[in-house]
């Protein structure tokens, strides 16, 4: 009996722990649209992950960042008016599996990015930088604009991207490689220079209430994907994908 009570208490405690909330400002994030917050954001994610999980909240303002990595059980909430702004310098993106990534998760579980905020990839400025590097021969010739991903997940399960607006990426907005249980819901996508959702060998993909204002291809499927469910996913011309 005792053991059940203590197990119950432990479960309650762990639920409580996993639901901890942290504001970005606690870690020194600045919403001035200038300061690059990557050190603070990555430290916050690592810190929250060590604590067993929780949510990192961004409130109104522009938060510039370089590429960072998500960890299991760490959720990001972009409140209304909050914009995560990707750096316009390609070297600021994390290179993972040959891609240049802004937000990534590799081998993680239970990842969420939600809210009413925006992720802005600054595609025009980023493309300019890439072009100038290529002209000077400073970037390997293998590099192509389509190697950029705003969100990149590999071998990760239980991913939810909800509510936000995703704009101005190069390459791919959302890349999933060998992932399971993916939920994309209520996203507004406005990224003319990128594909919106790219699936490779992933399963249990639930796309609902997505609006593709502008994009190259809304959904790209490579390899073998299974259980890809689409509900109310509309292009700007009213067609369903």
């Amino acid at each position, binding site marked *: 009996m005792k053991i059940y009570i203590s197990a119950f208490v432990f479960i309650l405690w762990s639920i409580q722990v996993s639901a901890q909330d942290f504001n970005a400002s*606690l*870690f*020194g994030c600045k919403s001035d649209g*200038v*300061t*690059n*917050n*990557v*050190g*603070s954001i*990555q*430290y916050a994610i690592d*810190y929250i992950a060590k604590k067993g999980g929780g949510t990192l909240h961004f409130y109104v303002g522009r938060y510039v960042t*370089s590429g960072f990595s998500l960890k299991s059980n760490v959720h990001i909430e972009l409140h209304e008016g909050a914009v995560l702004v990707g750096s316009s*310098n*390609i*070297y*600021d993106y994390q290179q993972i599996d040959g891609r240049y990534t802004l937000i990534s998760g590799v081998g993680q579980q239970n990842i969420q990015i939600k809210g009413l905020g925006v992720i802005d990839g600054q595609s025009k400025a980023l493309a300019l*930088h890439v072009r*100038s*590097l290529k002209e*000077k021969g*400073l970037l390997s010739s293998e590099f192509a604009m389509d190697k950029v991903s705003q969100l990149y997940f590999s071998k990760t399960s239980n991913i939810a991207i909800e509510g936000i607006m995703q704009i101005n990426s190069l390459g791919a907005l959302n890349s999933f490689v060998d992932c399971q249980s993916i939920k994309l819901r209520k996203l507004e996508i406005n990224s003319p220079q990128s594909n919106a959702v790219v699936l490779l060998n992933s399963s249990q993909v639930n796309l609902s209430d997505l609006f593709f204002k502008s994009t190259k291809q809304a959904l790209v499927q490579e390899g073998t994907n299974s259980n890809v469910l689409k509900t109310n996913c509309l292009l700007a011309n009213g067609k369903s994908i």
Partner: protein
Amino acid sequence: MNLLRTLFLLFLSFVYGAVSAQDYKVSDFGINGDGRVLNTRSIQAAIDFLTNKGGGTLVFTPGNYVTGSIYLKSNVTLHLEEGAHLLGSNNPFDYVKDSVVNWQSMIFAIRQENIGIVGKGTINGRGFQTAVNAVENVHKGIVQDELKLDRLREWNRPENIYFRECKNVLIKDITLRDPASWNQTYDQCDGLHVEGIYVDSKSYWNNDGIDVVDCKNVVIKNSFFDVADDAICFKSHDPNGVCENVLVENCTARSSASALKFGTVSRGGFRNFVVRNLVVYDTYRSAITFAAVDGGFVENILVDGVRSINTGNVIFLRIGDRWSKGRKPSMKNVTIKNVYAEVPLNKPDLGYNYEGPIEDMPRNISPASIIGLPEYKIENVNLENIEFVYPGGGNPLFAHRGLDAQSLEGIPEMPAAYPEFSQFKELPAWGLYIRHAKDINLKNIKFTIQKEDYRPAIVADDLQGGNWQFKAFLNDQALEKSYHIHNSTNVNVK
């Protein structure tokens, strides 16, 4: 055959090096000098690009380049043009604590060779604000640190430069300012050449000027240091390590600790040093401190030409027994000559940022001192052509140390204490105090006080051997027999 192969490889590397050593401007890589963009990753990408090409120079044109931790790599030189400022980010989370050295820094190099930082530009850690931000992070509970003395430990605050196990390092002409910890550490490097640098760093606690740890073949010349903590500091962290074959030439140092220092960490040793033309001013502690307190040795040291003005203590040679772990500390064959030194009555670093702490009071002005331990004597020290000018005025009502056997032997040995010229509080001489030593020779030494002092110029206790030729004056008036020798043998006074 082997020789041929070596020659061929040498030839190859020469040709390759000549071809590939190319200059690139930071702007080529999109590194931004607007003082706001964080350039950590793009600077790193540029360095990686250059080292992969076989080497080259990354030129920072005038501008303000903000960065966190970067790693310099083989055959790459950072050239900071005049007006180029490499600025440390104020966000403590932009810095890496390197896993090899277990320390934070802006510029790291670990096991690299042929690297350099040159040019008339500046590296400014902007460390005060970074350190303050780091303290806040501890108070907020998101960073762990014991906050000893209300500051993060030295290794949890970024230095400007930390190079470890590197070969052929060139640091030339640059200005270094205001890190949150020490300025620059060179640890277990072979072939370190530092020339013409300007270090101005009084921004936060532990701002050392330069720390050279267990390095071989070192030149530090024509450089200027104005710093809060030790200015030119040699350390030995490794019991099997040693600082050796070192030339320090034409340097000027101002410190709120010591100007030229061996230690405090002194596990391995220090040998074959030549120090020439050292100018020290407004320095709170010692112009010269050699400490062997952790089982290490100090030997074959020549200091030739020192001008020490408004500096609290001239010479402090000390054997202690702090972290020796059974190894026997030693100090021998030290020559210090051609020195002119003025010791002030007042605090020499008054008004500088991060002044040295007033401690070990009450004491009258402390003498130069050579202090071993009963079982570990300091051996064969030659002082030659030295003029010491002291304020005098030692008042026995304020602090008193008599010359009787009980008073002299009552001076504590303090083997495990942090070595500092002031640690024994009041000492019984105003000019020079010697204890537990062998063969201490004085040649053409002049001691002057400007006001009467209740103590004699020199006191020796447990000294075995020495030829002394010195004169002591109260202003112009000769002081006859101004010395006291206790429990000693074979000391000849002329």
